[in-house]
Every structure is written in structure tokens, then in C-alpha cells.
């Protein structure tokens, strides 16, 4: 902190010297705790460091969607004491640093800086009390896209008068999102029709109910069906988008998954690569400039990409307006 410039020079020298000399100054060790293997976010993270010639030793641990592995890996981090921890996704972040109002120093990582990425709603998940500097020994990047930007994107594709949503009523995240959408609808002058998926006796959402709800919305004449941050709906994406296409209704999504790996027509998404780059920027602020993590803002990436699924567009005969083509990424164009 006293002399960031000098430190940077030393680091750069270390980076240059590193391949040759094993005895060079110790490189910072970063542990990455991933959720479903390596994604473009990690690529973006490494690219950012490489562009700045900042050499680190990366140790990668992956839970492969199995949350039961988390306690053991967190214990390993506490024992190994790396210089910084990078986490992917909300469950991993929660396992490493805990809710801000329920930190257990015996279980969570408190004395090692943590940068979390791909947490859609860090405030809703309880990682931090508010956007901005958290005061914790952690900071992070959200991959969520502001709701009003998504609504505007829908309107730019085709006029939006009535918006349908199918959601799981047991996911607080999703319920909160529907509520925000209703507020926005009043402000921006459209109508929201939200349909909760039916729950079974164990209060689990019933997968077979999803196409039924889509049918209801289609019958009500919605212009778009919207998929928000909803894990259950995300899992049911194929069923939802498939039924929507049968009924001639386009699906819009705020996460990349549904537009890339199902038949959602369009999505305004935060690119994983950009999320990883911003996470690396925050890591560098901590390691190189010595900024306390609690003072580095928890934030969104601020620029988003529009993805249009041409396979869905052809199936619906609903093609993107020419002006939108200027900045959209077109996928599945092969006819």
C-alpha cells in the first residue's frame, strides 16, 4: 500500500523472471473453488492477469455440482492459507464466507481475501448487506442483468404489452424478481402475468406443471414469456421453451444458459468472460495495490450482450428487427 508503483514493478519483474528461476520471489497463490468445472469466467480471469503480466499460482478445486464436497474443500483452504480465494456461484460463495450476519470463524474463511464471481444476487443471498463496499474480507461480481434493461431489450425486439412469467414459488430469489417485475410494469406501462408452478405434498415444484402454465400464458396472449433467476425453471428450460415454441410464444431470458442450450429466443446476458475479467481486476486490487477487500465494491459488470437464437426465431417466424441485428450475437444460424 505504501508504494504501489514499486510493488507493481517488482511483480512485473517477478513475472518476467518466473519461468527461469525457481528461487524468484514467491508468486501469489490463488485457490479457485468451482461449481461445474471450468467456464469462460475462469478464462476471462486468467486472460486479465496475463494481459497485465501478473504471474500467479492457480490451484483449482471443483465440486462438480456436488455441494456435499464443500465443507471438506473449505477446510482445505483454511489449512493451506492461499493469498486469495476465487469462488464460482452462490453456493460456493456461501460455503466459503457464509452469510454476512451469520459468520462462524470456526467454519468460514475470514482471514483470507475472497473474490466471488457468478453470484447473481449477492444481497439477496445474504453474502453482503448491500451493493458496494461490504466491509467484509471479501468482494465480488454479480452476473445479473438489471431488470429494466431486460424489459427494454424485449420491447426493442417486439412491442411488449403483456409479459408472462413462470416461476417456482419456493425460491425466494425468483419470488422477489417477480415482485420487481410488477413494480417495473407499472412504471414502464406493460402488464405482468405471473404463474407459479404447482407444488407437490413435499412442497417441491412439479415439473409436469411447467408446460401447463406456459399454455395458460399463451392463451392469455402474452407477447413474451420471461425466465428470471430461478434454478427450478432453469432445469426445466427445455420443456418450457419447447412448449412455448409449439404455442408460438417467444421466451426471453436473463441468463445465458437458456438461450444457448434451449429454445429461448433471446437473452440479455452478462458474458462469463467479462465477469471473470472484472473478478480478476478486483483480485489485482487486493494483491497488487493492497486495497482492503471490504472497500472494493460488490457490483454488476455494467455491459451486457444480446444473444438471439435464430433456431427459435425460424421456428416462431419471429425475426429480430434490423436495428437490433447491429449489436446482437446470432447463434444457431445454420439452417
Amino acid at each position, binding site marked *: 500500500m505504501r508504494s504501489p508503483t514499486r510493488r507493481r514493478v517488482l511483480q512485473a519483474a517477478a513475472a518476467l523472471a518466473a519461468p527461469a528461476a525457481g528461487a524468484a520471489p514467491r508468486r501469489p497463490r490463488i485457490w479457485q473453488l468451482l461449481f461445474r468445472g471450468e467456464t469462460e469466467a475462469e478464462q476471462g480471469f486468467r486472460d486479465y492477469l496475463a494481459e497485465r503480466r501478473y504471474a500467479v499460482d492457480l490451484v483449482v478445486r471443483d465440486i462438480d455440482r456436488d455441494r456435499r464436497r464443500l465443507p471438506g474443500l473449505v477446510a482445505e483452504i483454511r489449512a493451506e492459507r492461499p493469498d486469495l480465494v476465487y469462488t464460482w456461484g452462490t453456493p460456493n460463495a456461501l460455503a466459503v464466507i457464509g452469510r454476512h450476519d451469520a459468520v462462524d470463524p470456526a467454519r468460514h474463511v475470514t482471514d483470507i481475501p475472497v473474490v466471488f464471481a457468478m453470484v447473481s444476487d449477492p444481497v439477496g443471498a445474504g453474502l453482503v448487506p448491500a451493493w458496494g463496499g461490504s466491509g467484509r474480507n471479501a468482494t465480488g461480481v454479480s452476473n445479473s442483468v438489471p431488470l429494466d434493461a431486460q424489459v427494454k431489450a424485449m420491447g426493442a425486439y417486439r412491442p411488449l404489452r403483456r409479459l408472462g412469467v413462470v416461476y417456482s414459488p419456493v425460491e425466494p430469489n425468483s419470488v422477489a424478481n417477480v415482485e420487481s417485475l410488477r413494480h417495473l410494469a407499472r412504471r414502464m406501462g406493460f402488464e405482468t402475468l405471473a404463474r407459479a408452478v404447482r407444488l407437490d405434498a413435499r412442497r417441491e415444484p412439479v415439473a409436469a406443471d411447467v408446460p401447463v402454465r406456459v399454455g395458460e400464458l399463451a392463451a392469455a396472449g402474452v407477447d413474451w414469456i420471461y425466465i428470471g433467476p430461478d434454478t427450478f425453471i432453469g432445469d426445466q428450460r427445455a420443456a418450457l421453451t419447447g412448449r412455448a415454441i409449439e404455442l408460438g410464444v417467444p421466451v426471453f431470458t436473463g441468463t445465458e444458459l437458456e438461450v444457448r442450450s434451449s429454445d429461448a429466443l433471446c437473452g440479455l446476458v452478462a458474458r462469463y468472460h467479462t465477469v471473470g475479467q472484472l473478478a480478476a481486476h478486483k483480485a489485482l486490487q487486493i494483491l497488487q495495490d493492497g486495497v482492503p477487500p471490504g472497500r472494493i465494491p460488490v457490483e454488476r459488470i455494467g455491459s451486457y450482450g444480446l444473444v438471439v437464437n435464430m433456431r427459435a426465431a*425460424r421456428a416462431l417466424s419471429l425475426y429480430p428487427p*434490423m436495428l437490433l441485428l447491429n449489436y446482437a450475437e446470432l447463434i444457431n444460424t445454420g439452417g
Partner: protein
Amino acid sequence: MPEGPTTVISQFGSELELDERQEAQLTRYWKAFVGRLFLMTLAFTVVAVAALSWLALGEFQRRLAPEFRSQSVVVAHAVQSQLQRALGAGVPIEALVGMDDYLDTFLRANPFISYIAVTDASGRLLFGRGPGHAIAPGLPPPAAASGTAPIRTVEAEGYVDAAAWLFDAGAAVGRLHAGVAESTIRQQSHDIVFDVAIVTLVALLVAFEFIVFTVAAWVRLPTTRVTRMLAAGTAGDFSWLLPGAPGEFGRVAAQLNAATLRINRQVGRLRAAVAERSRTDAGGAGARARAIATAAEGPLSLFTPAGAREIWDTSLVFARTPLFLFVLAQEMCRPFFPNFVASVYEPPPGLPGLSANAAASLPIALAMLVAALLTPVSGVWSDRVGRRPIFVGGALVAAAGLALTAGVDGLGALLASWGLGAVGYGMVFIACQGYVVDHSRPARRAQALAVYLGAIVAGDICGPAIGGVLADRLGWRPTFVVAAGLTLLGAALAWRHMRDAPDAGRELRRLPKWRDLGMLARNGRLIWLLAFASVPGKVLLTGFLFYLVPIHLAGLGESQAVAGRVLMCYGVAALLVTPLAGRLARTPRAAIATVGLATLLQGLSVLLLAWRADTVALVGAVALFGLAQALALSPQAALVTELAARESAVLGTATVLGVYRLVERLGTVVGPLLLAALLAALQAERTFALVGAGVVGCGALFLLLLRRERRSHRRGGPAAPSSEAAP
């Protein structure tokens, strides 16, 4: 050289004024001198510009015209690549979405493009935007239906049409056309000719100003000083020394000064010797010495005990050129100022009703109000502080106002910066007026004032024209910056060259008192003049010329260059009429008739626009308006002293004129506000009709004063008591 001393106690401290005849001779000489220089400049410039324009037009035809034509190819290329991307992504050509909005963005960004159209393979129109649709039919079939087809241009039906095939999955599915109208290209070349002509005219007038300035500073003034020195010496007055001067004049001055010093020294010694002799020898030798000395000396003046006096002199030109630059800068902003305001203005959310066009009247009115209120104050101020500090300070303030205006982002900031500029405006004008008064004898004051009017009219002509061209080519904000720069240049020239008379013996003005206003308010004929001639004229000047004309022209879709040329007609008409106007109004009755007719004409120029208000009609109206205003100007001033002769005797002419100007200027404040309100309520045509008819009515009412004058004349002259109401 005439006999006898030429010493005259002058207005400005120098006792070395030449007599009338000599002065007139010299003036003629210098006029011829400057005139020849100017004629040469004129001849060479005109020939050079004509030749260059001719070459440039040829070059335009050869290079730029193809460039404009190729715009169709450039646009076709951009649209083609995006359409191919959409077709390649699987969008069928007839199902392209949002084509109108998409093509409109190209038409907006490329004003030369007349149309963009997409047809199917058989030539049936699928999508098309733009006024012209001259789609050339004969596009040869494509060699291969893949990749990007080559773009071909065809000239047909007055259009240059760029066309290309569109491919989808190995088949030619449609055609793209983008066209430029030949008439657009011709219009471009006409605009260039106009712009060249305007720039030439402005360059000539600026050149003339600087020739006059340079000759005055480097030739005329040093020459005049030497002449005066020699004239004084010839008359036996060796009490003067010349100030330093550059170059040859400096050497002449140094030698003359050395000679003068030697004469002073030697005569001084001689006088001392004579005095010594007469003191020591009271007898005949002393008397003889005195007699010899007296005979030898003649009428000889030497340095006073306080020392030598320096010949002090200056020229009116030193204020004229800075004033010209100042007016030029102010006028540059006229053709686009209301539209600039409208573009900056954002209606506050809670305050509907004030449209952008109406908001445009506010800064104009504010500036007029500031200038009107400041004029009496800065007049008093400049009498005490001096002309140069007020001029330079005013120009600096005005430059700051212009520079700040270039960066404003809202109506509030604009009002502040434009108001600041108006403070500078008021200071500069009053300083100039004072400068003329200080540096001219009363008998020659009208002539001296004409020098200033010349500078103002030249600025009126050049300013809008060059400002319009600059605004078109550079944009609004850079034009303000250029104007600020010119104002600074004026300030620098004034600082370097203007010199306040050391002891002007100025009549110190005072602020008008309420009592003066009361006294003048009882003069019915003066009120009559103000109400039915002066104020209506000023209302039209700011409301019609400064506000309505630029807004109306922008509404007609004209460029700012055109608006500048239209406004220029005002100055040109004024220039042509001014010499005539002085001759027309020699008697009070003639003055009344002239002012009344001029007011009628001003109203008529606006009234006629109610029937036809296109660009050509506006040119005529503005020219007629300028002519009528110039016609009224000097008779009006003469009438004030005439109609308020009694009050002038009590209060002084300066105070009466000051009060008159103050009231008259309130018309300039009302003008933009009134016309903006009418425009918002009635639309342009009815505004022209109502305002024009109103001013015609004013002129007619004013002419009634003639009848009363005739009666009072019969009763015993124009100075008859006139405290009761006018007819």
C-alpha cells in the same frame, strides 16, 4: 502653408489642431490613399477569388461530384452487408423486420441519399424509404449467387442508382438500391459558390478594416504628428516634442526632437546672456542687446518651465476596428442563436407550456434588458474611468460570455452566460460612443459617428453571413468559440492602440433621475414618437429579425448559411440607404414624414409575409425592413432634440437622449417575448399578419403628428409649447 498660427484649442488637449481647410485637404488625401489601397486589394482579391472559384467549381465537378455520387455506393455497401447477415442467419427476405426504422437511420446520417429500397428478385418493391424511388431496372443477372454481389451504379431519371443483388442460400432473392439525386449534387455546388462569395465579401470588408487601421497606425498618425510639429515650428512654437515611433518615423521624430532641443538650448542660452547683460549693464549696451534679441527672436515659444510638451494624438480608427471585430463576433451568432437555445432547452418536467421556441426568446430579451439598463450606468462610469478600460473590460466580459455559451448545457446556464455577454456588449458600445465624443469637435461629430456606424454596418453584413457558414461547417459551439476569439482580438487591439484623451474636459454625465423622466413624460410629442415609431421599430428589430426570422428559416428546413445570407440583407440594405437618409430629413416636418413612412414600411415588410413566407419572400422582407430601419435612424435622433428642445435646454441634450434611448431599448426587451408569445398562440402566418398590421397602424398614427406640426408652425415655429397631449 497659410500665414499665421494654426494653434487651436482643441477638444482633446492638443493645441496643434489644423484649421478646417487643411483638415479637409488632409482627409481627402488619406481617403484617396486608403481608397487606392483598397481598390487594389479589391481588384486582386476579386480576380484571384473568381479564378479560384472557377477552378474549384471545375474541381468540384471532377472530384467532389463523383464523391457525392459514390455516397450511394457507400450506403448500398453498408446496407448490403447487414442484409446479407440477416439473410445468412435464416431470415427470409420478405420477412425482414423493422426495415423502415433501419433504412431511416441511413437517410438521416447521409443527407445526400434520396432513397434506399429493397425489391424481390422480380423487381417488386418490398421495402423503401426516401422521397425518390427511381430504381434503375436493368441490373444484369448475377454471375454467381453466393458471397457478396458487386455493386453497380446506373444513372437514370436524374438519379445515380447503386444496385446489388441479395443472395440467400445460393439463390438471388432480391435487389438493393440506393440513390442520390443529381439535383442534390447541383445544390451542393451552388452552396459552395455562395459560401465562397460570402467568405470573399467578408474577407474584403475585414481587409478594408485592417487597411484603414494599419494606415492609420503606421502612416497617417506619425505623418500627422510630424506635420503638426513642423507647422508649429514654422509658426515659431518650439515647445513640442514628438513621441517615439517605429521605423523611419522614429528617426524623423528623433531628429526633429534633437533640433527642437538644440533651438531651446541655444535660444535659452541667448536669452540668459541677454538677461545677464541687461542686468549688469543698465545702460545703452543692455538696451541694445535686448533690442537685438527681440528683433532676432520674433514670436518664439519655448518649453515651459514644466518642460517640453509631447504632441499627443490619436485616431478614431483605433476604436473603429476593435468595434468592427466586436460587432462581427456578436452578429456571427445571430442566424442560429434562437435555434441553438431551442436545442439546449429541456422543458422542466413540472412546467409544461414553455415550448423550446418560446424559450429561445428569453436569452435574447434578457440580453437586451441587461444592455438597456447597463447603458446609462456604464456611460457614467466611462466618463470617470476612461474609455479604454471600459472598452477592453467590456470586450473581455463579452468574450467570456461567448466562451461560456459554447459550453452550456441548459437554459439556466445559457441565460447566465448570454446575460454576461450582454454586460460586455453594453460596456463596449457606451465606451465607443464616449470615445467619438472625446475625439471629435462638435462640428465634426456627425461625421465621426458615421465612422462608427460604418463599422457597425460592416459587422452587420459580415457577421451573420460568415457565422452561418461557420455554423454549418463547424457547428454551433465552435462558432461561439471563434466569436469569443474575435472579441478577444478586438480587446487586444483596443488595449494596444486606443488612448484616452489626457484631459478630455468631458461633460460628466449623470444617471437620469425620476424627475427627468417625469418632465419628459409630460412631453406628449416625445411620447408619441416613442410609442408609435421608436419602440415599434425596436420591437421588430429584436422580435422579428433576431428571433422570428432564424426560427422561421430553420422551420423551412434552410441551413444556417442561408439564414446568415438572409440576415445579411438587413445590413446591405442599411448600407445602401444610410447616405440617403441623412439628406432626406433636413426639416422637422421632413423628419416626421421620413420616420412615419419608415415605420409604415417596417410594418409592411412583416405584413406581406402573411401571404407568402418562403425563403425568397423573407429575403425581400428583411431587405425592406433593413432599408426602412436605416431610413428612420438618423431622423429619429434629430427629432428627439427637436421635439424635446425645451427639456434639452433644462436637462442637457445628453440626458434627454439617454432617457429616450433607455425607453426605446425597452422595446428590444419586449420584442422577442411578444413575438414568441404570439408565435406560440397563433402560428407564423397570423403572427406576421398581426404584428405587421400593428406596426403599419403605428406608422399611420405617427404621421398624424404632421398635421399638428403644420398647425404649430402656423402659430409660430416648431419650438411651440408642447406639454399637452399630441393630436
